[in-house]
């Protein structure tokens, strides 16, 4: 038996023993686990499952053991993911920290920063948010104006962030600030990490068209951030910021924007519309559903191809934007078709007149409109593909 086979056998046995039965069922939205200082587990098994996975570092399987990670090789991680998929295990935690901030702390952080922040992410003890966008700086992120002024052993931060996802729940923020207002815009930015409880941090939730309030305005008034909480080099924060965006886009694509389990498109269309001679009675919808299904498969296969090529040592950096654009279209088309298939049932807002699946379909459809905006708009990602992949230039 090869080492990898042994690892698989051991992993399978451990998962069998440690993954509670209810964690192998589709996850309703309300059972999603984000962790944090005041974690919320509406299903007690979620807590058991998170603690079990974190105890092995398997919530961050590739991170070194010294920082709480699993210390696995790529090949071992592939086995672990396989085995998790095999038993249809839910993700133990959803975490911006693990997805995009931890990896850059590993890359750019000091030893002390790694020891301070990473183990808490692995165990789901901190919930992180991303302080990038500002009222005047969205796609043109490098135009951000939030100022950080040197005050000896700390920076004093003033400014406003917006669209900060889950800032109202988060314990820590990774925040882009301007440390040199006189330099060209990309060269005066730094990255600060601070506790959301720091005096001067104020958060106001914003309601989305879907009715949920997953993001906030964040006001920063004389917020004092000790200098050891700067990540990377002073005024070189843009490099860190771009790395995070790459992780963010890849992770958005990997999750396919998929929240909890919902209705399946073909099944819903069959039930609502019916078959004639084995063929969906609405031929036009049938054809569009099929295009969507094929697109979805094409996307999933491309995720696998990108992973295979990365494993084989190929150049894969261009996939981040390509797949982000595709993931947004995929999810928007899917949710749009679902609402269409359900007819007026797909347009319910609340109340007993609609079943839970239909209500979720409505909200998912509305929420999906953000997919081509969050994490960099589709237009911005098309710009990136045009310039970095196709080698096209700006106007001279």
């Amino acid at each position: 038996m090869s080492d990898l086979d042994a690892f698989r056998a051991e992993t399978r046995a451990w998962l069998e023993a440690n993954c509670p039965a209810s964690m192998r069922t589709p996850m309703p939205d309300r059972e999603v686990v984000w962790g944090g200082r005041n974690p919320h587990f509406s299903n007690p098994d979620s807590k058991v499952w998170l603690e079990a996975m974190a105890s092995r570092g398997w919530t961050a399987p590739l991170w070194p053991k010294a920082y709480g990670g699993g210390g696995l090789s790529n090949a071992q991680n592939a086995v672990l993911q396989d085995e998790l998929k095999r038993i249809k295990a839910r993700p133990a935690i959803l975490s911006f920290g693990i997805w995009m901030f931890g990896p850059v702390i590993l890359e750019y952080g000091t030893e002390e920063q790694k020891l301070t922040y990473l183990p808490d992410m692995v165990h789901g003890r901190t919930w992180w948010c991303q302080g990038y966008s500002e009222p005047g700086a969205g796609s043109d992120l490098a135009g951000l104006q939030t100022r950080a002024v040197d005050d000896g052993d700390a920076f004093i931060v003033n400014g406003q962030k917006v669209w900060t996802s889950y800032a109202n729940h988060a314990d820590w923020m990774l925040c882009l600030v301007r440390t040199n207002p006189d330099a060209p815009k990309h060269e005066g930015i730094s990255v600060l990490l601070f506790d959301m409880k720091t005096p001067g941090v104020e958060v106001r939730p914003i309601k989305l068209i879907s009715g949920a309030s997953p993001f906030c305005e964040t006001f920063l008034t004389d917020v004092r951030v000790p200098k050891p909480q700067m990540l990377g080099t002073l005024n070189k924060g843009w490099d860190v910021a771009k790395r995070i965006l790459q992780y963010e886009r890849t992770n958005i694509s990997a999750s396919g924007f998929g929240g909890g389990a919902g209705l399946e498109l073909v099944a819903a269309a069959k039930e609502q519309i019916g078959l004639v001679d084995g063929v969906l009675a609405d031929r036009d919808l049938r054809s569009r559903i099929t295009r969507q299904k094929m697109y979805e498969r094409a996307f999933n296969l491309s995720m696998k191809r990108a992973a295979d090529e990365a494993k084989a040592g190929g150049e894969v950096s261009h996939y981040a934007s390509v797949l982000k654009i595709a993931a947004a279209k995929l999810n928007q088309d899917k949710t749009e078709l679902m609402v269409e298939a359900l007819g007026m049932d797909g347009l319910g807002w609340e109340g007993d007149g609609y079943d839970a699946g239909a209500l979720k379909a409505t909200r998912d459809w509305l929420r999906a409109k953000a997919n081509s905006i969050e994490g960099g708009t589709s237009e911005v990602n098309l710009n990136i593909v045009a310039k970095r992949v196709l080698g096209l230039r700006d106007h001279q």
Partner: protein
Amino acid sequence: MSFALDEDLTLLKDTADGFFSERAPVSAFRAMRDAGATFDEGLAGEIAALGLTAALLPEAAGGSGMGFRAVGLALEAEGRTLAVSPLLQTGMIGAGALKLFGTPDQQAHYGAGLADGSIRFALAIDEGPRHDPRRCETVLVNGAVTGTKMFVQDGGSATHLLVAARDAGADVLAVVPADASGVSRTARTTVDHRDCADVIFDVAVAEAILPLGDDGLEGLLDVARAGVAAQMLGVMGGAFDMTNDYLKTRTQFGQLIGSFQGLQHRAAAMLVEMELTRSCVIAALLALDSGKDAREAVSIAKARAGDTLQLVTNETIQFHGGIGMTDAHDSGFYIKRARVLEALYGNAAFHRDRYARLNGY
């Protein structure tokens, strides 16, 4: 199975890319078209000599035991330069039929001819202008074939026809030498200026019968479809690269046209579609190699390749402006080849319908 290329496949890809770009660039196709030729015997011989037409067969039968994924790489290289070659009909479909259905004796007999270039196949399947494998009035009676096949690709230059026929209600694949008595071929001039013929069989004696598996012809048709999809990947890649080069050389308003965002976004959107489509084509070829049910994977590949290729070849003309409409420019060659490949063995709509039926709706 991995999507990444291993060492052997990388070598094969480099060899095929190099061969077609040097030996059969688009200018060679243009010269052929100008000369009124639809087939290049010399080129066909060189491709056989490279081992590509027999590659699918086992070594004992003169091949090299390669998989469909490998031949797909060569088909893509061929499509990229619009080369006219026996790779699809002979290397993919003919050798594929022998690999899937041939007895060891049949494999050895035809394998030798495939390897030395003396045998070239053509699949004779459709009996009308739209692909419809259920429509088959051609029959095999007492070992002889009678019926009419239309739009047979490579039908004029093939030495042997692989004829789909009904034998007392069952599907069979009959191998009929093109020079057998009772075979008459009429060339068609198609928009892509490649070899295409209608073939009438009038009690033409079959030289061999390939027993088909449980799926009947579908298994072989899926090999053909995946092969066409691989060619389509090459055609779209060739058209796209030519177009992207033009974006970087043509100036208007004192600017490279590639600096206009209206064109940049359309070019980038094409790249996204091409990347997604590439994954589907590779998946279809890998599914064929796995020996498992490949129907769904193949239909996805052919449908997506059709849609993407239509987009890319239309944009190719548009991005070139007036020059793209001229016969002197290669844009026209790409779009013409594209539409023939799209119609061949089921267009995108055919394969969407097939996918939906396979999934019960």
